[in-house]
């Protein structure tokens, strides 16, 4: 693998478009916050306090940049690994930790592995199963948005593992055929897979490659793709993966690009540390998910056999 950092290698017809401004300070803060969160989740995993947390690793900047391009009615789909995107979309540290501890305050009633945050209010749906199933769901959401004529998109984040999966093929194919308002973003490391902008023509879908460690570039690419999707130009794939060797990355790279003195860097770190501590304390003090919820929301209403199960659980 040699090609990387080829920003806007294939940007469609190349017409001039107004770029959205890049909130550099915010991205730096989110990178710091996400890194600290990931570190804490790993420690909690190692200590056996929570289930297996999955690191965002090299994909962090791309996840954050992509999520920052979304608007309130949009839907973010990804995996538990994509937690930084959920944070960028507005998930508080306390919400994330309540979800990780699977305690009250987790909107999904403690049913997902750490990081698999689901919050309909925020428009976030991170899963902990298939690497690629959500890509097809994103195609369907984007198709529905186009049918309805609404300025909403689905953003689907995925990694190289999804590239060998048939669902990727189905998702890109369906999205292209129906000009779905969907933006697919590949993030994280790339190894022996092909860059998607080199093969996307096979699905009839627009594609662009951006540097995955440049959150601002990803934000702008996704914002462009979003704008074009809702104007009827169809879906897009943004390949924001990182080949090897790949440095500098993430926060360090951003710090170098952002005018910040040592004192302000320290202040951000201290602020994150304090907020994370408070969020952890609140999550650890929260009540566990009630056993009675075990049979809730299997169906819209509990059928007789779940009522029976509920009665047995109460004994």
């Amino acid at each position, binding site marked *: 693998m040699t090609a990387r950092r080829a920003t806007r290698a294939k940007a469609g017809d190349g017409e001039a478009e107004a770029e959205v401004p890049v909130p550099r300070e915010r991205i730096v803060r989110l990178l710091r916050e996400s890194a600290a969160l990931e570190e804490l989740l790993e420690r909690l995993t190692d200590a056996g306090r929570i289930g297996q947390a999955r690191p965002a690793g090299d994909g962090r900047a791309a996840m954050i940049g992509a999520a920052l391009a979304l608007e309130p009615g949009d839907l973010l789909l990804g995996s538990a690994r994509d937690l930084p995107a959920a944070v960028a979309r507005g998930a508080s540290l306390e919400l994330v930790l309540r979800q990780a501890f699977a305690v009250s305050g987790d909107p*999904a009633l403690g*049913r997902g592995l750490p990081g698999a945050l*689901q919050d309909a209010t925020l428009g976030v749906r991170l899963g902990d199963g*298939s690497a690629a199933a959500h890509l097809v*769901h*994103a195609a369907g*959401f984007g198709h529905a948005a186009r049918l309805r004529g609404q300025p909403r998109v689905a953003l689907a984040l995925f990694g190289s593992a999804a590239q060998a999966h048939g669902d990727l093929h*189905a998702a890109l194919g369906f999205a292209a055929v129906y000009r779905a308002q969907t933006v697919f973003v590949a993030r994280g490391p790339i190894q022996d897979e092909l860059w998607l902008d080199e093969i996307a023509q096979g699905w009839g879908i627009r594609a662009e490659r951006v540097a995955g460690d440049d959150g601002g570039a990803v934000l702008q690419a996704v914002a462009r793709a979003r704008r074009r999707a809702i104007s009827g130009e169809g879906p897009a794939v943004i390949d924001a993966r990182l080949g090897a060797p790949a440095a500098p990355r993430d926060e360090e790279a951003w710090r170098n690009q952002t005018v910040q003195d040592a004192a302000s860097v320290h202040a951000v770190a201290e602020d994150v540390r304090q907020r994370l501590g408070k969020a952890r304390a609140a999550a650890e003090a929260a009540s566990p998910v009630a056993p009675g919820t075990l049979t809730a929301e299997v*169906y819209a209403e509990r059928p007789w056999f779940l009522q029976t199960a509920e009665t047995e659980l109460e004994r």
Partner: protein
Amino acid sequence: MKTLNLVQAVNDALAVALEAHDDVVLLGEDIGRFGGVFRATAGLRERFGEERVIDTPLSEAGIIGTAVGMALYGLKPVPEIQFSDFIYPGFDHIVNELAKYRYRSGGQFPCPVTIRTPVGGGIRGGHYHSQSPEAYFIHTPGLVVVCPSTPRDAKGLLLASIRSPDPVLFLEPKPIYRKAVGEVPEGDFEVPLGQARVVREGGDVTLIAWGAMVSLCEEAAARIAPSGVECTIIDPRTLWPLDIDTIADAVSATGRCIIVHEAPRTCGFGAELAALVQERCFLHLEAPIRRVTGWDTPFPYTLEHAYLPSVERVLDAVEATIAF
């Protein structure tokens, strides 16, 4: 009322749903321009447009997955899988995604998708056009599984399914798509989900059957009635969640129970039914519960008549149960 066959009743229900709800969309292979391989969607694209009746690429995973995403948006998709034998490429999306979206999200992301698919053998369709996969889906918490046996029920149950807040597998018995003919209410009406139908009442033995097996049992009951054996026939209609009370009442009254289905016997839905019946009716049973089912083989082509339950096999089971 109008007289329709079962596939016409399905078409009628879909037209009513499309007319009544602008969030209902149909999607599937060849359902638009062609009108469906069984003509279940004939004329609907012309009437409601290509954005409501959507031809799709040939990918069951794509069809089901897309429907899941549409439901997340707020639409009520009704995908068709051309034959239930082809549902397996979409199995992951049904079992791991569609069925669990509501549960996994704590109720935040319900997925009201109604998957229509023809089931059953006896049409010289061979292995890939004849199977009855209901047990796989009944085994999956979160799914509703429905199988009508009459045109009236097909229309009423399909409308109820489309309006259900839960995902539904709507299994259409294709051997009787055109054979089953009956009066169907015009316009909008529903048959409630979760309610079995008492097809026939008799005091000696209870037959439980669904789909194409209901009319088979009716024929068996009619043939044995002159000899003084009277059968109750129960059609669950909604296979899951099951109307166990109606079934238990019937078996308790007759003391004898025979379950008839096309799918292979082992771990078929009949096994679960037998367990549920014995849990509730043990002290009323006067004979072991019997099953008349497909054999534990892949669905055959030329020997499908030997594979499928027949009137004779049902009669043999009735006689053995009575004589026990």
